[in-house]
């Protein structure tokens, strides 16, 4: 009896309406309804997309004209998902090619970006050398000063280096170790005891061994979180692809271009492609959502 009372009490205490005045309760209910409304506004287009991606062109047109927004298909056509791979293409790249481009582009940008940030963060936080202050200043300066309009010079440089429209463009340009990722890795290594590396030195290991065998694996948690955040933004990037790697359209860039060629009534196949493009990000997010949600805070990520 006492136990159940305690449990009931504890449940009440943790609730949002516990010990609230009537006015406050009304506010909470209104806010809850507003949140629900937003959820509906956001969910509606996706349900609409799912319904229409499974319709035949005729079915889609018919429902459209009769204002049957969320009507289930009367002519089911899951074939649209296969047709999306067969029919949609941009500059000779079909959906498979776009997925392939998205995968390698994301992998390059994420691996390079996070790895080199870990390198610079580790070196600047753990080693005392002559240029350390200067390099740290450079890292902070590059982040603080917002340079506007350097895009033409970047574009020109890529042209001069003959890496424009080649896979070398992201490989070379993304091998930087500064920026937001650097700050996170720097803060992480700054708080990590040096004794781990010293143990390696006592065992006869050198600095490379200490970094690659001990210090880098220990930074797994922030590196995974940074990788997920970078991967989502890379997967969704379309502007830099359309500018620097036009012949290697990723899913985001390719679908944007494909959209302009879609004829009226052919939308269901395109909608199927949109849903397919969304899937990888949603899967990654659903697996790591807790990690992303919990670890994010301004100016830093917890390890």
């Amino acid at each position, binding site marked *: 009896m006492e136990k159940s009372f305690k449990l009931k009490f504890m449940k009440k205490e*943790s609730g*949002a309406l516990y010990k609230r005045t009537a006015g*406050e309760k009304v*506010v909470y209910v209104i*806010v*809850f309804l507003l*949140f629900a409304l*937003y959820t509906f506004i*956001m969910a509606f*287009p996706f349900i609409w*997309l799912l319904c229409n991606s499974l319709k035949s062109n005729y079915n889609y047109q018919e429902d459209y004209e009769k*204002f049957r927004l969320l009507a289930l298909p009367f002519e089911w056509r899951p074939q649209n998902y296969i047709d999306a791979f067969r029919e949609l293409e941009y500059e000779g790249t079909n959906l498979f090619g776009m997925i392939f481009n998205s995968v390698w582009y994301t992998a390059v940008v994420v691996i390079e970006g996070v790895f*080199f940030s870990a*390198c*610079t963060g580790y*070196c600047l936080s753990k*080693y005392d*050398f002559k240029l350390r202050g200067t390099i740290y200043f450079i890292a902070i300066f*590059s982040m603080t*000063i*917002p*340079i*506007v*309009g*350097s895009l*033409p*010079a970047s*574009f020109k*440089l890529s042209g001069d280096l003959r890496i424009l429209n080649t896979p070398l463009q992201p490989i*070379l*340009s993304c*091998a*930087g*170790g*500064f920026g937001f990722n650097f700050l996170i890795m720097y803060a992480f290594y700054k708080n990590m005891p040096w004794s781990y590396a010293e143990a390696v*030195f006592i065992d006869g290991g*050198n*600095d*490379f061994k200490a970094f690659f065998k001990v210090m880098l694996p220990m930074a797994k948690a922030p590196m995974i979180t940074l990788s997920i955040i970078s991967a*989502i933004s890379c*997967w*969704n990037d*379309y502007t830099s692809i359309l500018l620097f790697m036009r012949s290697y359209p990723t*899913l*985001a*860039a390719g*679908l944007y271009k494909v*959209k*302009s060629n879609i004829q009226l009534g052919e939308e269901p196949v395109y909608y199927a492609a*949109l849903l397919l*493009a969304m899937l990888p*990000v*949603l899967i990654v*997010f659903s697996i790591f*959502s807790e990690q*992303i949600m919990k670890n*994010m*805070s*301004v*100016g830093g990520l917890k390890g």
Partner: protein
Amino acid sequence: MEQDIAALQTQGTLPTNQKRIRKGNRRKGRTLFIVCILAIPILNWLVFWLYVNISSIFLAFQEIDPWTGTQQWSMGNFKKLWEQITGDGDLLLSIKNTGLYFLSGLLITMPLSLFISYFLSKKIFGYQFYRVVFYLPCIITPVILTSLYDQMLAPTGPLAKIFDKISLSYPLNGPLYKKDSVMPTVMIIIYTILTGFGGDMLIFSGAMSRIPTEVYESAKLDGCGPIREVFTIVMPLIWSTISTKIVLLMSGIFAASGPIMLLVTENYNTTTVAFWIYNIVQKGLDVNLVATAGLCFTLIIIPIIFGVRAVMDKFGNVEY
């Protein structure tokens, strides 16, 4: 040789020497490690940041000679820029629109994120679900979201049908394609608000979750209501997060934009500074003018950022 070593051993100098040699080797090894580890990031910074920005400054003082096609030193770009800003060109419009995006971010999206974060931190019913729902637009590619938004607003879309049902007039080509009107920009701003507060929400809820519950409890005992709680407890305690966010917003003022390219293929008076720059580079137009505009905007924004930062710091940060 062996005799020498034996002699050294008897003198007791070998261990010291060995130590010195070992120390020297360690130092060399350490230097080699630092050089190897930092070489690529520094080279990358030198080429893709320093060189790019220096050459951007050079581009601002150069013009393409129409006869030879080569870059010639000139101050003409600054004159051209002034003409563009004071005239009726795209640049003036893009500055105005960028201002609208910035203000919507500062005055609508950020307070909205704070409002949502507050109720999420108070564990409103279903808060874990809503946290994911609010963050979802940040992870789904804008290509998909804009396609959906476009479909919803199209003259043949659901919104037009609803307007039709309740006998209200709807723009002929949809609100996104209304010529000579601010409507397309407003619609894109609404899109950025609807999809843009997820990231801020996470940051603010993270900051709010670190406020000790005892602070709320003692305030409540003193008769503090929710509005007072927000302004006298929450805001001051997360001020460092808010001020960082404001400074970041200021830093990106000229990058403030929406998915214009995805929503309106034709311009419809929606251009922003970021889109204006991107468009010129993509079409290979007057890149020197872009570099000049960029240089001027950077010179304008730097003192503003430092000023804003100083003002923000004056309010002081609370340690807890």
